[in-house]
């Protein structure tokens, strides 16, 4: 286990290094580069900008600037927002909960429905249900999430009036029920794509598990088909799904961004878009790096969980 952990941890660190290099590249592509903050201020003359450049060390070679930037990132000094001067990490921190709430709920929905569709598709292979699920998944993967959100709002809040059209809660009403009411539609919208992905993978994993020897043994013992599936097949089929949950993180975050935009949900995606609108580049860069780190961390955790549950991986 220790060898596995060290190996996996070093992989993540290398990935972090590469991600930071890409991030630094994007930072230098932004208009005005790291100086954008001051370039927007009309009272600044070119001389002022040149002096600032000197002071901030932007005349040094790029690799020194990179080391400096990465070192400050590691220390938790991610700069300050142009808008209100608050530290970037604090600004992001204020929006993390809303995004995690939305992502968590929609992932739970996706796992529950996707697992069911996947298992049923595998146990009733080539049935009408299986064919419809296959086609349905392909169509679901083709629908733009933001458009699905717009159609959802039109039908369920504008026409039927069942759910609110946006925001996380009604101002002046902080009850859990009110939060839940606002949460329903965006989390269903966000889960659509992941129900599709989850069900396809679950179907493959279930078919894989069914063809294993231990299933034959279980059947030979005379267990009922239901028990064989529930006890021996599903458990084994769910293992690769833990890895999948980690791998899907970037696409869930992407989906969250557009969903939050359509539903004016106060999360990280909404913050990213608002910050872009205000040219608040420190927050934009912060979110870019924060989301990548979140993804690397999520994959690491998923792999460790799989290793804990499945001895074949940590020993093999």
């Amino acid at each position: 286990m220790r060898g596995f952990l060290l190996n996996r941890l070093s992989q993540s660190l290398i990935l972090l290094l590469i991600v930071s290099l890409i991030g630094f590249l994007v930072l230098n592509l932004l208009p005005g580069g790291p100086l954008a903050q001051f370039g927007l201020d009309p009272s600044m003359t070119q001389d002022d900008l040149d002096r600032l450049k000197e002071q901030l060390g932007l005349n040094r070679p790029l690799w020194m600037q990179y080391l400096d930037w990465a070192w400050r990132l590691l220390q938790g000094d991610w700069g300050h927002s142009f808008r209100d001067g608050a530290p970037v990490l604090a600004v992001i921190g204020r929006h993390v909960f809303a995004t995690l709430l939305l992502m968590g709920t929609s992932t739970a929905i996706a796992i529950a429905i996707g697992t069911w569709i996947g298992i049923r598709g595998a146990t009733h292979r080539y049935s009408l249900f299986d064919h419809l699920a296959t086609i349905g998944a392909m169509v679901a993967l083709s629908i733009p999430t933001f458009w699905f959100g717009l159609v959802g709002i039109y039908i369920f809040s504008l026409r039927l009036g069942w759910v609110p059209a946006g925001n996380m809660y009604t101002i002046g009403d902080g009850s859990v029920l009110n939060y839940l009411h606002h949460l329903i539609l965006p989390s269903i919208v966000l889960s659509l794509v992941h129900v599709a992905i989850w069900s396809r993978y679950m179907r493959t994993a279930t078919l894989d598990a069914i063809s294993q020897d231990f299933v034959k043994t279980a059947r030979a013992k005379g267990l009922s088909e239901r028990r064989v599936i529930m006890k021996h097949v599903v458990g084994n089929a769910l293992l690769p799904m833990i890895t999948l949950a980690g791998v899907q993180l970037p696409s869930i975050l992407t989906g969250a961004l557009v969903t939050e935009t359509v539903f004016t949900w106060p999360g990280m995606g909404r913050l990213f878009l608002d910050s872009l609108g205000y040219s608040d580049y420190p927050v934009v860069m912060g979110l870019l790096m924060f989301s990548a780190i979140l993804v690397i961390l999520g994959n690491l955790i998923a792999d460790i969980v799989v290793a804990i549950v499945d001895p074949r991986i940590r020993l093999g």
Partner: protein
Amino acid sequence: MTALAANAEPSRWWRSRTVRRFTSHHLALLGVAMIAVLTLACVFGPHLLPYDSLYIDLRARFSPPLTGDHYLGTDPLGRDVAARLFMAGRTSLLVAFSAMLLSTLIGTFVGVIAGYRGGWIGAALMRTVDGFLSFPSIFLLLALAAALKPSPAMVTVIVAVTSWMEVARIVEAEVRSLREREFVLAGRMLGLSGTHIMFREILPNAMGPIIVAATLTVARAILLEAYISFLGYGIQPPLPSWGNMLEGAQQYLDSAPWLAIIPGAAITMAVTSFNFIGDGLRDALDVRDDRV
């Protein structure tokens, strides 16, 4: 279809197993038909419709579909939605197709080098692929779009830069497995250069997976362009694209829902078609693939 022909016998390629399998895949045929209809509509539609896509008629603002000659209604400026939809289709399909070509080119190049050379070059290239995949694609796309002023060409480049990784991974795995085969060893013994072996001997044998991945990349590129244009950072008006037609649609959702529904339906139709075609090609070309 020429690409399919290359894999089949030189004569009577239309009777080859690959073509037979593709034509027995009903969804793939449906996809081809839908794309054909969409493309024809986008090419010829604007010439057949009574209104120009840029013609503003403020007296006819917000006409619902099927009012007079406005078959799909009009937008907040009284412009004909059908004409705009077809002109937007030209932009969106062209951008997506060019982005696919560019990203397939980048991905294939990186994948072939990484798979054939292996060693630290291969490791460095594949870790870079992992690095790009760690960013949520929209975050990276939007940051780049904000940094570089988004002309249609730039949008194409940005979309390609954020979607070449899948192709690279597929090609790398394929080339790595082909590297030790006899025909490659024979090529080496004949003294062929590394470049010749990589691109003239190995690459043609990896065309199947590349074609499938390229088809799915078109679908992905249409979606990505739609996302960033919807958010206002992609194709800029007055040049219409399916994404930017949806940009202002949310504020009129209650009074003019067709403004949101129609372009989105076109996007879904195009993307579904390319996904269907990709699925059919995967079966026809015998590509093993664990992805959806």
